[in-house]
C-alpha cells in the first residue's frame, strides 16, 4: 500500500553529484583559474588487472604455501562476528601459531573477513577495503547473514548474498560460528590456497563488470571511482 500522497523531502545531492565531488574552479597563486575534477584528478581511474601465475609450478606452489601459512587478516569487523574473532588472538585460541595475524591496514592484509551482516553502507566500505588489498587476496564470509541474509532476509538495507558483490573464497556457516569453527575454516582456506584455488582477486578482475554492476545496483550513491586503488 504505497502512500500516493507522500512527496519526497529535499535531500542533498548524493553520489557523484555531491558537493565535494563536483568540479570546482580554482585560482592558482599566479592568478590563473582552472578546473579541478576531484574524481578524475585525485583518484586513479584504471581498472584492475588479473595477475596470472607466471611462475613455474613448483615455485608457484611454494608461494601458495607461503601465502597459506601467512594469512594476514584485515582487522575489520562487521556485525556480530567481529566479537567472535577477537578470542582468536587470546591465549585460549592463539591463531598466531597457525600463521594468522591481524594487520591494521588493507595494504598489508591478504584476508578480508566479512564477519556478519553487511548493510549497504558497510558494503561500500568493505568493497573499498577489499580493492585496496593486494593480489592475491581472499574473502571469507562468516555466518548465515553473508550466505543468504539470515535473520535479515527481509531487511530494507542488508545484502543477502555476499558473493554477488565480492569473490568469496569460503563461507563459514553459523549464527555466529564460534572461534573453533573459524579455526577450522582457516584450515580449509589454507587447503584451498595451497591447491591453487585462491584466485579470488583474479576472478574479481576478470568479472569486474559483473561485480560492479551488482555493487552499483544496491549502492545508489556510488561516489568513488570504479576501482579503489
Amino acid at each position, binding site marked *: 500500500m504505497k502512500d500516493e500522497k507522500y512527496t519526497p523531502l529535499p535531500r542533498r545531492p548524493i553520489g557523484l553529484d555531491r558537493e565535494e565531488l563536483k568540479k570546482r574552479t580554482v585560482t592558482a597563486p599566479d592568478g590563473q583559474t582552472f578546473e579541478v575534477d576531484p574524481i578524475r584528478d585525485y583518484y586513479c581511474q584504471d581498472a584492475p588487472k588479473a595477475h596470472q601465475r607466471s611462475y613455474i609450478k613448483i615455485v608457484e606452489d611454494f608461494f601458495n604455501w607461503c601465502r597459506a601459512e601467512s594469512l594476514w587478516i584485515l582487522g575489520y569487523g562487521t556485525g556480530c562476528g567481529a566479537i567472535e574473532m577477537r578470542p582468536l588472538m587470546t591465549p585460549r585460541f592463539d591463531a598466531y601459531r597457525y600463521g594468522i595475524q591481524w594487520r591494521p*591496514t588493507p595494504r598489508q592484509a591478504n584476508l578480508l573477513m566479512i564477519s556478519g551482516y553487511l548493510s549497504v553502507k558497510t558494503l561500500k566500505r568493505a568493497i573499498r577495503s577489499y580493492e585496496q588489498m593486494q593480489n592475491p587476496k581472499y574473502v571469507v564470509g562468516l555466518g548465515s547473514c553473508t550466505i543468504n541474509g539470515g535473520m535479515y532476509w527481509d531487511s530494507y538495507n542488508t545484502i543477502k548474498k555476499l558473493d554477488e558483490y565480492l569473490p568469496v573464497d569460503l563461507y563459514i556457516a553459523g549464527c555466529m560460528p564460534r572461534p573453533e569453527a573459524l579455526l577450522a575454516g582457516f584450515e580449509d582456506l589454507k587447503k584451498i590456497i595451497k591447491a591453487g584455488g585462491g584466485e579470488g582477486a583474479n576472478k574479481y578482475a576478470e568479472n569486474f563488470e559483473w561485480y560492479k554492476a551488482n555493487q552499483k545496483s544496491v549502492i545508489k550513491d556510488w561516489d568513488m571511482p570504479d576501482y579503489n586503488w
Partner: protein
Amino acid sequence: MVSAIFIIVVGLGAAFALGLLKDSWRNGAFALTMAALAVMSWISISWLGALASGAAQPTDILTAGVQPPFAINLRVGLAEAGLLSVITLTGLLSALYLRDALMQQGRRSMAVLLIAIMALSGIVLTRDIFNLFVFFELMVISTGGLVLLSDDERAIGAGFKYLVVTQVISILLLVGIIFTYHAQGSLNIDDFAAQPLAAKGAGLAFFLLLMALVLELKPFPANGWALDIYESAHPGFSAIFSAASGTAAVYAADKVLATGGAEWLPLATFIGLFTFLASNILALRQDNDRRLLGYSSVAQIGLVLAVIGQRDILGDQFLYIAGGILIAHAVAKAGLFWISGVITRRELTAWTVLRLNPPLVVAFATFLAMLIGLPPFPGFYAKWELAHHLVAEGRVAVLVLILIGALIEAGYLFRWFGLAIKREAPVARPKYAPGKVLVIYAAALLGWYAGYRWGALSQYDNLLQAMPLMVALGFLLIEGLPARIKNVIAIAALCVWFWLSYGSFDPLQMIFGVIFMIGGAVIFLASFHETGRRLGFYPPAMLMYAGLAMLIVAESSFAFFAAWEVLTIGSYFLILRGKKSEPHALSYLMFSLGGAFAILLGFALAAGGTAPLAIADLAQVTGAVAPWVFVLLAIGFMTKTAAIGLHIWLPGAHAEAEADVSPMVSGVLLKAGLYGMFLLLMTMGRQHLFGVDLTYVLLWIGALSALLGNLMAIFQEDAKRLLAYSSIGQMGYALFGLAMMNHLGWLMALMFVINHYVYKSLLFLSVGGVAKRTGTRDMYRMGGLIKLMPLSFIAVLIGIITMSGVPPLSGFGGRWIFYNAIMTADARLPMVLVFLSGPIAFLYLFRLIHTIFLGQLKDEHRQLKDAPFWILLPQMIYVAFLLGFAVLPGMALRRVDAYIGEHFTEQGLSWEGLTITSEFGYWSPVQIMIVIGTIFTLLFLLLLALNHKAQWVKQFNIVYAAERPFRPETTHFAWNFFAPYRRALGFLLAPLVTRFWGAITNALHETAEFTRKLYTGNGQTYAVHVLVFVVVLYLVAGGIS
C-alpha cells in the same frame, strides 16, 4: 682676498638697499638678496679654500683700525671660514628654497633673512663678547621675523615663546657680560684667555655668560621653545635655524669656553651628553617629522658641545672631529628640513611619497647616514678619531654614553626611513618645485663632497677612493639600466675583483674571499630572474659586497671597521626591500650598529692611542685591557653571527627578504661575523676575564645558540623562518668549533663556513623559488610539490642530507671533524648541548622537505611549474658542488688544514690516499660513497625486478580507514608538525631574549613618553625651565668644582 668683514657689510648693505626698493619690484629684490648671499658665500668659501690650502693665514680684522680691546676685532681662521661657509651656503640655498615665501612676503622678509645670515656670520667672526650679544639679539629679532614666513599659524605662538625665552637669556647674557667685563676689564675674548679668572665673582659672571650661550644651544630640558619653532616654522627657515644658527651658537660657546680654561669643560661635556642622550630618547616618541628633526638637531648640537668639552684632549684634531660632526649635522639637517618642505603632511608615514622620486630617497638616506656618522661621511671619521682620543685619555664612560645616544638616534632615524620605504605610498606623484628639489640635491652632493674632503684629511685611507666602494656607488649612477644588464655588471665586478686580488690571499682569506665574491656571484645568477629595472636593489647589494671585499683585505682596524659599517648599511638596505621586513630590518640595523659600536670601542681600547692599529697587532694587546677588547670585539662579531641573545633580528630579516636576497644575507653575510671571530681568535687567542676563560664562555654561547636555534626552528610554520632559525644554530656550531681553540675545531668551523654557505644558499633559493610559485611561505599551505617541482625537491633533498650530516654527503665531514675535535677539547658540558642539538636539526630539516614536497598536493597548486630557470641554475650548481665536495673534501680543506697548522701544531689531519686520518679515527669519503652507492643500486634493482609493474596511483588513493578523503587541506598533516616535541620541550622556547630586548626598548619609549610631558607648550613653563636649568647647573657646577 676680500676681507671677511664684507660678509657683514654686504649683508647689512643689501638689507638696507632692499628697504629702498619699491615693494612691487619683488623679482629684483630677490635677485639682490641672492646676489648678496652669493657674494657672502663666495667670500667665505674663498677664505676657506685659501686657509685650508695654506695660501692665507688666519687674519684679524680691526674694525676701528685699532688693536683690541679698544675696538672690536673680527677674526677669520680655518674654523671660522668653514663655519661661515656653512652658514652662508645654508643661507643661500635656503633663500633659493624659500623663494616662493619670500616673494610673497616681499622685500622686508628678504632683508630679515639677510640680517639673520649676517648676524650669524657676525657671531662666528666677532671676538668681542658684547658684540656677540648684539649679533645674538639681531639673530633673535631676525628669527622672530623669519618664523612668520611659515604658513602654519601655530608658528606665531612658537615665535612668541621663543621671544620670551630669549628675553630671559639676554638678561643672563647681559649680566654675565657686564660682570665679566668688570672682572676682566675687557670685552675681548682673547684677553680673557690671557688672564685666567681669579675673582670669585668672575666665576659666576663667566658662568652666566656661558649659560646664556649654552642656552642658545637649546640644551635639554630648557629647549621647548626651539622644538616648537622646528615644528611650526617654514622648513626653509628651520634649515637655517638648525644648521646655521646651531653652528654659530656652538662656535660662540666654543669661543667663550676656550677662554675659560679646562675647569669648565666637564660642565660642557655634561650638558652636551645629557642633551644628546635625553633628546635622542625623547625623539623616539615623535611622530611629527619636523619635531623629530628638531629633537635630533638639539641632540646633535649637544654632541658637538660634548666634543667641545673634550677639547683639552683632542689637541689639533679638535677641529677635524668637532667640525666633522658639525658639518655633517648641518648639511644633513638642512637637507632633511628641506625635504620635509616638499612633503605635504607632517606624520612620519607621509614620507612614503619620496618613493615616487628615487633620487630623493638616495638623498634621504645620505642625510641619515651623515647624521649617524656612517662611512664615508665626515661624522664617521670624526667618530673614529673621537673614540680613539677618548679611550686614549681614559674617558671611556663619555664614549660609551655617546655611542648609546648615537645608537638610539640611529634607531628612530632608521625606523623613520623604514616607514618611508615600506609603508603604503600614494599613487599620484606630487609635483615638486624644481628649485626646492635642486637645493636638496645640492645639499646631498655637498655631503658627499664633505665626506671626500674628510677622507682626504684623515690619516687613514680615503674611503671614497676605495675601489669596491666606488664600484658600489657607481651602481647608483647606472640605476636606470635594465636589471639584467646591471646583474651582468655586478657579477663581472665581483669576479674581476676576486681575480685581481686573490693572488695576495692566504688560505683563510681565500676561503672567505671565494664565498664572498664567487659565492656572491653565483647567488647573483638567481637575480637574472627579475626583470624590469629593479630599482634600489643593486646599489645596496653591491655596497654589501663592497664592504665584504674591503673586509677581507682590511689590514688596519680602521679599514676593518669601515668595511664592517659599509657592509652593515648595504645589507640593511637590502633586507629592507623585503615585503614585510620593516621591523626586522630595523632590529637588524640596531643590533649591527650596536655591534659595530662595540667593535669601535674594542679597537679603540686595543689601540690605546690614536696611532693606526694593524689587525695583526691585536696579538700585542696585553694587560688588563686585553680581555675587554676581546669581549667587545666578540660581541660585535656575534651580532652578525646572531649568537643566542643577539639573535632576535635574524629570523625576520632573513625570512622576509626577497628570494635572492635571503641567500645573500644568510649564506654570505653571516660569514662576515665568522671571519671577524677567526681574526680575533687568531690574534688574541685565549683571554681571561675575572679568571674565566673567555673562549669557554664562547663555547657555551655557541652551544646554546646551536641548541636553541635548532629547537626554535622545528616549531616554525614559515619555511624561510625555519631556515633562518637554523642559521642561528649552524652559526652556533661554527662558533663552538672556533671556541674550542684547537686545530680540528677550527677546521670544522671552516668546513661549516663552506658548507653553510652552500646549503643555506641552496635551501633559501629553493624555498624562495617554491614560495614564488605558491605565493606563500607557510609550509602547511604547500605539500605534494615533488611531482611538479622535481628539481627544487632534489636541491632541498641534497641540501638537507648535507646539513644533517648524514653520510655520504659533505655534511658528514663536518660532523666527523667535530667528533675528532672534541676528543681533545677540555670543556665537556657545553658539548652535551651540541649533542642534543644535532638530532633536533634532523627534525626541522625533515619537516621542511616533508611539508613542502611530500604529502598532499593542494587544489590551487595542481598546475604549478618548477621554479624559474634562473633560480634553479644556482641551485644545480650548488648541488653539483655538494656532490663533488662530498667526494673530495680535500680540495678545499687541505690547504686550510696546513694553514691552521701554523697556529696549532698538534693534531693535524693526514690526507694520504683516499682516506683522511686523524689521531683518533679515519674517514674515506670515496669509499663510503662507493659502498653506499653499490648497496643502494643493488637493492634498487632488486625492487625493480620484483616491482616493475607497479600501478601508479593518485594522491587520494590511500587507505583511510575504509573512508576516503575529500580535500587535500584536511589530509595533509603539516601544521604544528612536532606537537609532541612542543609538549615535551616547549618550555625551552620561552621568548626570554625577545622579552629582554623588548623591555629595554619599552623602557626607553616609556621614559620618552613620560619625559616629554615636560614640554607643556606653555611659554612660561619654558622660561621656568631655562631658569631652573641655570640654577641647577650652578649648584651642580659648584658641586663639581
